[in-house]
């Protein structure tokens, strides 16, 4: 029996077997009833959900025959879930993409090339912040329209640092290097306080009983290190790839990265940062808020976490420290892409175009959560922050600084490379392997995947 016959037979038999149930045996899972269409849309950030819900409502008002259903899945599972849905042939029509992860879907033929539609509808790509559109293009095919952008900075507890005699002025000019940690390490040491109230520079400091850690480092940070090690390594002269985007050779074996990781490990050994093996399910931002840490690296998409009125502690932002190769922040954008297998290509495109339009991006800006990709909408978001009395200029400064930013790595198989590099870095931080050895081996594996 050929597989096809077998399937038909199976279908018939099982329908027979299941007649007692409420199950329908038709194979239609079309959600188009009449001319109504539902577009499934996925994103990962719960903070951004309300803004995009606004967009969906506005969109539905303008297009009463199209409803947008938004699903948010936390970052740690977003890509895995997406892959399962793709494999099931049941992916969302439109989803938010990140630059390291999207190439796998493009390579698998799962993303719709938007270039013809952009040409047809004359979408003005010059209206977006520079550098945000090109990442989504490969071999002349365009796999997404820019959605937002972000840069990185330090966030710190002003009360705690003031108590240790560190003021905002000092924090704006921090230096860092992997050998003695520069002025940053001194500030971190001062900000670390043990249960008896001694700070990290006190000879009697008890690193086994720390009340507040000077620095909270992020170790579940994939192959990018956007929230810490990547920025520091870049300011030490490290580059991820021979060429970005679409490099074919990773450089995780660069000693400049190993030095950076070794410095982070040294912070833990000194008792200035919490050990990785005592981490809880809480994110660093929550620990910072709970007063268990004084400072961390954060991205512009988290601003509101620290500035919302409910927060009891007082926080401020400072630029990342200047390293041997200057001050470097990751500049990253996300985009909205259309699934190649969507049954509602035109409607999905309408929604993506709307997401990238001033109307929606202004709505998103209004919430003051992220910086939208459109220049005009970015200005609007800044105005919202200013109106709320929030000083967020370090993020826009970082974006504007000459040679002050770098792009996150974009290659084939990013989804698979991410855990490999993350594992290597974690094992180095845990002291299970030397940074050099762990990164060398991870780099070989990563390069096997981009060959």
């Amino acid at each position: 029996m050929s597989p096809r016959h077998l399937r038909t037979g199976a279908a018939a038999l099982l329908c027979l077997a299941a007649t007692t149930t409420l199950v329908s045996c038709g194979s239609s899972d079309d959600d188009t009833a009449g001319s109504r269409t539902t577009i499934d849309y996925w994103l990962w950030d719960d903070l951004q959900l309300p803004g995009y819900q606004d967009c969906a409502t506005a969109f539905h008002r303008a297009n009463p025959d199209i409803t947008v259903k938004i699903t948010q899945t936390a970052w740690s599972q977003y890509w895995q879930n997406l892959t399962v849905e793709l494999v099931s042939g049941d992916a969302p029509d439109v989803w938010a993409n990140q630059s390291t992860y999207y190439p796998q879907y493009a390579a698998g033929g799962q993303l719709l090339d938007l270039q013809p539609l952009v040409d047809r509808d004359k979408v003005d790509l010059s209206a977006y912040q520079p550098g945000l559109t090109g990442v989504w293009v490969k071999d002349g095919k365009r796999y997404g329209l820019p959605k937002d952008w972000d840069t990185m900075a330090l966030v710190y507890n002003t009360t705690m640092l003031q108590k240790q005699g560190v003021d905002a002025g000092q924090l704006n000019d921090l230096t860092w290097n992997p050998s003695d940690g520069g002025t940053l390490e001194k500030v971190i040491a001062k900000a670390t306080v043990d249960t008896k109230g001694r700070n990290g520079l006190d000879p009697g400091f008890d690193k086994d009983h720390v009340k507040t850690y000077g620095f909270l480092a992020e170790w579940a940070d994939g192959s990018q290190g956007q929230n810490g090690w990547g920025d520091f390594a870049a300011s030490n002269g490290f580059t991820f790839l021979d060429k970005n985007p679409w490099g074919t050779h990773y450089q995780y074996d660069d000693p400049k990265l190993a030095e950076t990781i070794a410095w982070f490990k040294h912070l833990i050994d000194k008792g200035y940062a919490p050990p990785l093996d005592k981490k809880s399910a809480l994110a660093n931002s929550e620990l910072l808020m709970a007063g268990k840490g004084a400072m961390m690296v954060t991205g512009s998409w988290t601003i509101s976490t620290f500035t919302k009125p409910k927060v009891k502690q007082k926080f401020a932002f400072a630029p990342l420290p200047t390293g041997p190769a200057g001050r470097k922040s990751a500049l990253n954008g996300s985009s909205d892409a259309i699934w190649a297998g969507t049954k509602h290509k035109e409607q999905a495109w309408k929604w993506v175009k709307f997401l990238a339009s001033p109307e929606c991006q202004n709505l998103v800006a209004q919430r003051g959560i992220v910086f939208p990709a459109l220049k005009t909408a970015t200005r609007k978001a800044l105005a919202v922050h200013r109106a709320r009395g929030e000083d967020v200029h370090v993020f826009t400064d970082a974006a504007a600084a000459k040679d002050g930013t770098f792009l996150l790595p974009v290659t084939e198989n990013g989804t698979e490379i991410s855990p490999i590099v993350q594992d290597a870095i974690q094992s180095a931080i845990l002291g299970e392997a030397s940074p050099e050895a762990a990164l060398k081996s991870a780099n070989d594996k990563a390069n096997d995947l981009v060959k």
Partner: protein
Amino acid sequence: MSRIRTKVSPGRIAAWTVLVIALVVTVFPFYWMVRTALTPAADLYTDSTGLVPDHPTMINFLRVLGLTSQEEAQAAGGSGAHVDFLRYLLNSVVYSGLIAALQTLFCAMAGYAFARLRFPGRDVVFGVLIAALMVPPIFTVLPNFVLVKDLGWLNTFTGMVAPSVLMTPFAVFFLRQFFLSIPRDVEEAAVLDGVGAWGIFWRVVMPMSRGPLITIGLTTTVWAWKDYLWPLLTGREEQTRVLTVALGIFQQQSPNTQPDWTGLMAGSALSVLPVLVLLIALGRRLVESLNFTGMK
């Protein structure tokens, strides 16, 4: 029911102490689950040690049952994603009920045929069927997923129950063994009365076999109730999402920075509730069925 020794000795006290500790360790996590579910999310930092919450609330149950607005849910520590645990509960009941009922019936039919009916090739067919015991589930999960997908049955109950309703080797084996043990006289009397094979099976053998059938049915219900991987692959959509899958998805839809513990514990408590009902209603039956068989 005989007790061996009744006199109080240090040994007996020690033995009872161990049993009581085992009970406490068994039950405490459930208590803590309910306690957390009754705690407002905002209190978790300040109020995570006491045995009773400072400000008990039902909000977490309400929001996992989908009875609050998005804003209320977010204010209570959730991500605001739509959840409806009542529906998932029903889906779980449908899923495990369908599998248990149909699988028991079909396996009883097969077991009866192997035990009583005469036909050429019986032992060979039985041997082949039992050999399926050797195939571990993970091995069939991958191709079965592809099969169900190709049939267009993803996210339907048909697709979700298809691989387990028709047969499972152990149940066939188990019920055949039981049918072999039934005295033949009863059936033979029925044959003389001119009752056909189906009539004998349905009206004579099945009623006599209530014990083993309930045993198989109950244990199958429990396993189906606990199933995760297969419904995760084939039934993630709202209309077929079972409790275990819903809990997994709910966990993933927590806010990025902080797991929604109070909501998760409320959802977990709801997944335990039916089990408790089952245990109270059928406790003796269930416990005794383990004297009877053991299944994995």
